[in-house]
């Protein structure tokens, strides 16, 4: 289930939040149940560390409990939860040694003066579905995602990972819609370029068989 919500679940959730705000603890349990997996996944994708993701989830759920009275409904409740999760995750990451960032510019497509692309591209896109089930692929992809610059990474995880709309992500991150789009696109370009050697290798191994 993603946070992309339809009207009914949104209304049901708003009712839960109101119930909890008036002291109904069962409503809180339901909210925690709905959100814990999402908080954990978002935090894990940003930190790649199960212990950190667990700590963050615990902390965020407790914050929701303690701070629910400060939620005024100016934005969607889910956006509020996302912002708390991002803040808690970044606080956690601040104390850790960071992996050196890979330059994004180096991995964007290059063009000649007439705007023609200059990359020599092998099309490795066929028969890649089985890759999804390989642990190695998962690790390679997670590592590539972790090397994205932070600004692009968070947009990629929220848009493509959580399946949120561009508008929703712009609300959570307080960015304009064009800024979200541009960061998402740069993230995808980066990942494609970064992962191409791995996928090319996989493709040529299969061709040989």
């Amino acid at each position: 289930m993603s946070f992309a919500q339809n009207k009914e679940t949104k209304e049901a959730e708003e009712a839960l939040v109101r119930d909890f705000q008036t002291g109904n603890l069962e409503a809180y349990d339901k909210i925690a149940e709905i959100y814990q997996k999402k908080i954990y996944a978002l935090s894990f994708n940003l930190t790649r560390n199960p212990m950190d993701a667990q700590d963050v989830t615990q902390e965020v759920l407790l914050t929701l409990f303690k701070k629910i009275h400060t939620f005024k409904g100016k934005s969607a409740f889910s956006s509020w939860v996302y912002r708390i999760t991002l803040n808690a995750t970044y606080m956690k990451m601040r104390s850790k040694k960071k992996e050196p960032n890979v330059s994004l510019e180096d991995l964007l497509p290059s063009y000649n003066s007439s705007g023609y692309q200059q990359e020599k591209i092998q099309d490795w896109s066929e028969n890649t579905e089985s890759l999804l089930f390989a642990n190695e692929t998962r690790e390679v992809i997670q590592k590539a995602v972790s090397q994205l610059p932070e600004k692009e990474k968070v947009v990629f995880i929220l848009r493509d990972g959580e399946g949120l709309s561009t508008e929703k992500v712009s609300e959570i991150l307080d960015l304009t819609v064009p800024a979200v789009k541009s960061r998402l696109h740069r993230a995808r370009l980066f990942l494609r370029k970064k992962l191409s050697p791995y996928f090319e290798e996989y493709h040529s191994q299969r061709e040989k068989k």
Partner: protein
Amino acid sequence: MICCKECLELLSDYLDGELDPKTSSSLEEHFQDCPPCIAFLNTFKTSTHLCRETIRQVDLPEVVQIKLKEFLAKNTREKK
């Protein structure tokens, strides 16, 4: 006709269905005459798909769920 650069810059909007029909067709026109851009499109689409599915596979381990439940029971019930 649009050039490769314009075409690749619009690729995400194109795949996310966020382009107007006219711009979409001009991208498709470009693809017809540009095999490298087709290869780029295919690999871009596939890598985006694989990355998306991979980061969606993260699951909350059962043991963590149990720990969270205990933690919340302790911290949200005893004080009230």
